[in-house]
């Protein structure tokens, strides 16, 4: 059973619907004890880092996620979820969960014709193989919508990059955590295969 963390950040039901379609059992929960006990966790989200951290802390979900990560629970982060697993976000100058050492940065693009948010389908270039990318070939397109991007301190935590003037991390991983800046639940067949990979992934990185 997969637990989808409910912290009032965006549309959690779209992740749930994709899992239902794939026949993967899941539950949406705001309960830190349920998160601690969960076999696997999906940490999605759309919204603002500071308000997300406020809700997580108020519900005790911050420590529940940190404990689950320490105890080796496989975790899939998505979009805002991916940004706030790092130590800090520039969005609202917010201290975050720190599951992976690094910072979430705002796009600072010199080309004024590039739109913010970075919205739409973009290709990823795979820098490092990972079981969560099984069946995904290099240059596969995924759906992105974001104005900030995750930047791990340690480049070995970067699994795939994406180009939008700069080459920013599109998928990052450490131990039993795998996290994407793009939305697997909105990325058609390729996205669904990532969710399917999460069903079978035991948390080993290779």
């Amino acid at each position: 059973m997969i637990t989808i963390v409910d912290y009032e950040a965006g549309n959690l039901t779209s992740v749930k619907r994709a899992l239902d379609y794939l026949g993967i059992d899941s539950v949406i929960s705001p309960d830190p004890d349920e998160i601690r006990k969960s076999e696997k966790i999906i940490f999605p989200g759309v919204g603002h880092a500071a308000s997300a951290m406020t809700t997580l802390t108020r519900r005790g979900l911050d420590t529940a996620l940190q404990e689950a990560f320490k105890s080796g629970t496989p975790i899939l982060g998505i979009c805002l979820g991916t940004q706030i697993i790092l130590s800090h976000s520039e969005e609202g100058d917010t201290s975050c969960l720190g599951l992976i050492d690094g910072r979430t940065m705002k796009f600072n693009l010199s080309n004024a014709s590039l739109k913010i948010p970075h919205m739409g389908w973009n290709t990823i270039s795979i820098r490092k193989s990972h079981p969560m990318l099984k069946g995904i070939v290099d240059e596969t397109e995924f759906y992105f919508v974001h104005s900030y991007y995750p930047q791990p301190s340690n480049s070995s935590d970067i699994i795939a990059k994406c180009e939008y003037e700069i080459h920013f991390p599109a998928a990052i991983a450490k131990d039993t955590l795998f996290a994407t800046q793009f939305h697997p639940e909105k990325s058609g067949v390729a996205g669904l295969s990532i969710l399917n990979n999460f069903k079978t992934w035991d948390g080993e990185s290779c």
Partner: protein
Amino acid sequence: MLKKRIISCLDVRDGKLAKSIKFIDTKDIGDPVETARNYYEQGIDELVFYDITASSDKRDIMIDVVSSVASQIFIPFSVGGGLRTVEDCTRVRLAGAEKVNLNTAAVTNPDLIAQTSRAMGAQAVVLSMDVLAVPVSSSIPSGYEIVTHGGRTHTGIDAIEWALRGEALGAGEIVVNSIDADGTRSGYEIRLTRMIADSVRIPVIASGGGGKPEHCYEVFTEGHADAALVASILHYGEYTIRQIKEYCASKGVPIRMTA
């Protein structure tokens, strides 16, 4: 590289598909959920459902359509038509729509853009504007005016000014629908699209007039659009999604070729 998007627009009335031509005569041409799934399998990048249901007591049918679409297709889609309050927008979001399209209600009550943006984030709010070419005047310096009710009601608002205001109020994307070009299938309003796309920093979707793949290519390159809305050329089977995309890709436009 970020791809240009081909977005299909499906007009829905009483839960059935209808394509309006010049906003006058509409006829039912099928089931919206089935059509959406078909386009999804063919590789459409995004979908828009526009609810043109007249009576408000039939609005719940649309919520059912949205939720069936959301459980079968896994690409972004937005819903517009008849959304007048943040509560209306929240309902379609919870039913599974990624974004909401605000049009007339935003003109009547611009604060709706700000309220919706605060409630669900700018990325979920699409400002859809119907635009008519008019003589240049001091109140309409661009020569493009925002209109409502399919072009019958003039608002006296300049299109560029409205786009900038929408962006400032918290819209995350803009649909520029040319009433002059709509239904003509003779090409998008390139000049208008480009003026808006160059004025704002949020993505711009061109709408109205797409009749062949060349028109998409033109609006992506000369029109500076981030996405192109297509309707009748797909609905009547004149071109496939693949044909439109292959043409654009052959001309060097970055486009997603997988489904």
